[in-house]
């Protein structure tokens, strides 16, 4: 037993050391995974404009929860680059928080660690029942056929942002098909003036993976078969990747965006009028408005599909809420989950965090533009599918995302990737999945 404890300390140390994580909150580590009956620790992901803003918002809201229940919540807001490694370290050491945010694409992978509390029917009843959640969002809660280990908290989906003035000046309407999008991109591209039809985060493997999946879905391709085995080289997958990479090959994207990661560069180009369109999630509003663009200057439509293809416009993105299995305050944790997913709190939190409500009947509050609100809500409800809920999701994201990044880099440096190139890159990614989950 002692040996295990010492070993657990070592692995936690090793994981934490590589995590390059921040200093953290003393409270969270000391009381994690089991605060007293009157205390909970909560790891929140960074959703708003800064860690400080998030902490302020959450502290204010959770004070209401404390008032209602007498349970104090110690909040720590963690930036995205650190969150996954912090969760892994907590999982290895067993010293985690009571409640935490996870990216919903990690739900299946984290579920397979066994470190999270399953929301069985009793737990779901305690938080208000499964039926209170938007169906599409709830599908991201965990693997099919098992009790979920997370529930939706903030909803995000992709939309196509377009610059109203640039479209009007060019006599264009927002595109309804991919062919129209390509034509509009070409018409609006003027490299001499540094203006392009589309902005792209070509250096982000997560973004590349998202679009490989969305466009693959449009072509009717699933990355995994019914047994969960990868099938990345099917014609639909290849055509899906090609659809995305061709934006770079066709020259409608600034080649420099091959260096853009998940930062402010691509939304910044759009906000400054250097790109006429941007495919992004609804939380781009914060960045766009922060860069000086007014909400009246842009419109949003669903990402279009090639004529005749499926009309999938997004995957179901967003943030879920999980409870660590070893919490000593399960009831308190469930009360907190119920509080955070209550319609009233959703309306409040969705504004600073630019999120869609994940509960049925919730009002879209992150924008004052009714058309934009309706578009995003409709995309979530009717045109979104979850990313594959397989244990190897993390490896899928890495391997396919990097393969697509490599193809974009090839296109940016002047070599248009062929179908064979794409199939070969995806085949390599598939082979690397050999040991993943």
């Amino acid at each position, binding site marked *: 037993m002692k040996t295990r404890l010492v070993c657990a300390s070592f692995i936690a140390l090793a994981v934490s050391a*590589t995590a390059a994580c921040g200093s953290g909150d003393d409270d969270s580590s000391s009381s994690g995974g089991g605060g007293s009956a009157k205390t909970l620790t909560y790891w929140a992901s960074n959703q708003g404009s800064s860690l400080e803003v998030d902490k302020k918002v959450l502290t204010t809201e959770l004070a209401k929860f404390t008032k209602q229940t007498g349970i104090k919540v110690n909040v720590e807001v963690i930036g995205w680059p650190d969150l996954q490694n912090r969760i892994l370290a907590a999982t290895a050491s067993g010293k985690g928080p009571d409640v935490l945010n996870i990216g919903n694409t990690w739900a299946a992978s984290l579920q*397979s660690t066994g470190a999270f509390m399953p929301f069985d029917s009793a737990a779901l009843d305690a938080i208000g029942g499964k039926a209170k959640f938007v169906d599409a969002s709830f599908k991201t809660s965990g693997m099919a056929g098992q009790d979920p280990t997370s529930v939706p908290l903030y909803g995000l989906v992709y939309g196509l942002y377009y610059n109203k003035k640039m479209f009007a000046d060019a006599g264009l309407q927002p595109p309804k098909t991919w062919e129209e999008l390509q034509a509009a991109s070409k018409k609006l591209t003027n490299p001499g003036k540094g203006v392009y039809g589309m902005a792209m985060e070509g250096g982000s493997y997560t973004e590349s993976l998202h679009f490989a999946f969305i466009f693959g879905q449009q072509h009717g391709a699933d990355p995994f078969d019914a047994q969960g085995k990868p099938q990345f080289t099917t014609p639909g997958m290849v055509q899906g990747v090609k659809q995305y990479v061709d934006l770079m090959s066709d020259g409608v994207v600034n080649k420099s965006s091959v260096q853009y990661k998940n930062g402010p560069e691509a939304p910044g180009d759009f906000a400054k009028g250097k790109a006429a369109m941007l495919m992004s999630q609804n939380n781009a509003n914060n960045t766009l408005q922060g860069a000086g663009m007014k909400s009246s200057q842009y419109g949003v439509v669903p990402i279009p599909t090639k004529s005749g293809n499926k009309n999938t416009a997004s995957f179901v993105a967003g943030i879920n809420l999980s409870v660590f299995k070893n919490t000593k305050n399960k009831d308190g944790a469930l009360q907190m989950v119920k509080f955070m997913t209550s319609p009233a709190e959703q309306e409040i939190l969705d504004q600073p965090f630019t999120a869609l409500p994940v509960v049925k009947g919730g009002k879209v509050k992150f924008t004052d533009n009714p058309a934009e609100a309706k578009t995003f809500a409709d995309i979530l409800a009717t045109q979104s599918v979850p990313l594959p809920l397989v244990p190897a999701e993390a490896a899928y994201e890495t391997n396919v995302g990097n393969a697509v990044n490599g193809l974009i880099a090839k296109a940016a440096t002047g070599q248009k990737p062929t179908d064979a190139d794409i199939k070969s890159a995806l085949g390599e990614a598939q082979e690397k999945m050999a040991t993943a989950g």
Partner: protein
Amino acid sequence: MVVETVKAAPRAAEDPPPRPRRRRLSGPRLTPYLLVLPAVLLELLVHFGPMLVGVWMSFRKLTQFFISNWSQAPSAGLANYRLALDFDGPLGKSLLHSFQVTILYTIAVVLISWVVGASAALVLQRSFRGRGLLRTLFLVPYAMPIYAGIMTWSFMFQRDNGLVNHVQKSLGLGDGQSFWLVGNNAFFSMAIVAIWRCWPFAFLMLLAGLQNIPDEVYDAASVDGAGVWKQIRYITLPYLRPVNVVLILMLFLWNFNDFNTPFVLFGPTPPKSADLISLHIYGNSFVSWNFGFGAAMSVLLLLFLLVVTGLYLFLTSRRSRRA
């Protein structure tokens, strides 16, 4: 001498030498050991402990399924090692590629850092006006926080507004539209940053070594007609040998294991040309969540470095003895 020995022998037989008194570790004699003990324990805890756990992990199927109960991870036998060393398979192939990139990177960075550092040390060895200022300036890269330095380079390597492309265009060496952080150029960018980071250390060590060479040796060589190159070949380099043995070994180990440079420049998933082995292992362990396989690659890396270091020290010490 012989007579004395013969005479001494019977005396020794008659009067056996007094038994050496057993030193008892008590009081003041124990103090040094007690003072060292915390450091030894910490060293064991911080270095050897995780290393042993890493070796154990390399023989386990340690994926996300077992991380919360990782001591129960099933045995993988040698499977992780087989995958890593199967150079026809995708994982082995990518490890081999990463290894080759790392070797090239290490050799280039160590060699160029040494040449630049040695040149600067030779120039600054002689006294002249402004030498102090130059010495201080040369040490700036070494003194600057690594993260800040590499971040600055990443800005300079940007395609649109980066200083490197601006200078390239100003000098008429291109159109100023090169990609430095994407494709094959990423390797050169990474190496340049590492050389910038390493050469001041080489400079510092070699300058210290140079100042230990007596002037009289150079004077004598000069009287005998030795020119600058002969002096460097037959005086400077042999005198610097002990410094170089340590310096080259340290530069080799640092750069072979370099994580900061590629991670800050490219993030967790670098371009293929800059896929250094440390980041490769990180990606497999912490991005793809395959900790057992990552540990196996780490152990192989450790063994490689132990062999290379041992061989290097053996060869250099043998040559020293011959000299």
